[in-house]
């Protein structure tokens, strides 16, 4: 039965893993799970090079962080033999320990079995055997500047996320750190350069600093890899390489909405189309739907203008948040969009966001939603 399902949404929650499955019409989504009930699941990612393979970042309230792997589309899972971990510190050194594996990214198409993981506190790890054994990326983790790059962490620690592998070059990587900024490597992670010019950091005493920014989500367009977007704590930005200065495209959002949020999702084929979910970033930062009226905003011109898309979403008194990994798109001609909320609901659109319907309710707090074909 499951094998004939064309679409799977993996829903990672604070209390376990769920799946929503539908056929080619993308209607009649059926919920299954939980798997790993009680586990904190931060990310689940399908391997685009080998679609039956999935990796999952997990921990529990008590137990340390780890990675699970599936080779049968999520029917069964095996724990990594060597989960991501920092190297043992020498006497007198900072001695970080991975508190959570927060992000997973499949490696370049030419490097089957290669995966990257990002952690909190900010660490970068690489596996060359399909996620079974993980090694620290010394060029970042042991970089003498790392304590400065990732020095502004929240009480939960800073998060390393948005690990991007350039589809043209496996040695060209980007990472995002909340709080720390966006960093680029052109030598497979051996060295890193901050890349935050033009990005606001209005929470810092010196807003012109080269790093210390708070990118919430950074994405690279697969069909035009020189184009990057980021949803930052301080706005929505676009960067077209080889330029190095981000342009604040969120300035075109309605002033009463602003341009704060967590996720940003790209159209799989059109580099000018992106979706965001604005949240309330005023005063004490509620980070909820603005005014209790959730909406998705879409640009179809690279951020020059944005259009509100809220048909089918609650009209009032809906105070959820959509976290940075909790929104995704499928690759259908009429783009399917999906997001999960901190209130445990999953919303879907099969018409590029024009209208929405709730396809699951009452799940635990949703941390990530990913589409698997």
């Amino acid at each position, binding site marked *: 039965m499951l094998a004939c399902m064309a679409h799977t949404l993996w829903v990672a929650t604070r209390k376990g893993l769920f799946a929503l499955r539908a056929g080619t019409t993308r209607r009649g989504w059926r919920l299954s799970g939980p798997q790993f009930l009680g586990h904190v699941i931060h990310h689940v990612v399908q391997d685009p090079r080998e679609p039956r393979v999935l990796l999952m970042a997990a921990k529990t309230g008590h*137990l340390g962080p780890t990675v699970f792997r599936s080779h049968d589309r999520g029917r069964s899972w095996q724990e990594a033999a060597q989960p991501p971990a*920092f190297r043992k510190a020498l006497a007198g050194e900072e001695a970080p320990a991975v508190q959570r594996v927060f992000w997973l990214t499949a490696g370049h198409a030419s490097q089957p079995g290669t995966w990257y993981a990002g952690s909190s506190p900010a660490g970068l790890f690489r596996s060359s055997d399909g996620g079974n054994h993980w090694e620290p990326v010394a060029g970042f983790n042991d970089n003498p500047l790392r304590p400065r790059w990732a020095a502004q962490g929240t009480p939960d620690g800073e998060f390393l996320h948005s690990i991007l592998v350039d589809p043209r070059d496996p040695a060209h990587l980007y990472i995002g750190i909340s709080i720390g900024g966006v960093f680029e490597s052109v030598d497979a992670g051996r060295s890193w350069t901050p890349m935050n010019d033009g990005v606001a950091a209005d929470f810092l005493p010196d807003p012109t600093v080269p790093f210390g920014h708070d990118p919430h989500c950074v994405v690279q367009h697969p069909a035009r890899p020189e184009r990057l977007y980021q949803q930052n704590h301080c706005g929505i930005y676009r960067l077209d390489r080889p330029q190095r200065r981000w342009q604040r495209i969120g300035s075109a959002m309605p002033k009463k909405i602003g341009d704060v949020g967590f996720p940003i999702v790209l159209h799989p084929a059109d580099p000018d189309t992106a979706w965001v979910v604005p949240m309330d970033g005023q005063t004490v930062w509620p980070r909820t739907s603005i005014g209790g009226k959730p909406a998705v905003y879409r640009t179809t011109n690279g951020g020059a203008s944005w259009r509100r898309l809220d048909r089918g979403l609650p009209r009032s008194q809906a105070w959820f948040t959509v976290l940075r990994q909790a929104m995704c798109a499928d690759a259908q001609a009429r783009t399917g969009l999906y997001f999960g909320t901190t209130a445990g609901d999953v919303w879907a659109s099969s018409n590029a966001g024009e209208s929405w319907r709730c396809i699951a309710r009452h799940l635990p707090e949703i941390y990530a939603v990913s589409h698997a074909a």
Partner: protein
Amino acid sequence: MSCTIRIASPLRSYTAGAASVAGSGATLSAVLAHLEAHYPGIRFRMIDEQERIRPHMRLFVNASEACELTAAVRDGDTVHVICALSGG
């Protein structure tokens, strides 16, 4: 030194559901190494890569909490692995 290790429920996926397993070692560190050899992966869920007991884990040798892995374990002792968590 032979000991008994009481396994908290969150870790029993590693011990095939067993709440109690046989252990060996003269220190807590040695007991955990022995445990890892028999139940791969279990140690890292309790002890981080810097050899620190994870924040929500507690280890006892008999009735005494052990804050360091150098704690002595004697023949016939019971090592308790306890999980401590609050909130929802």
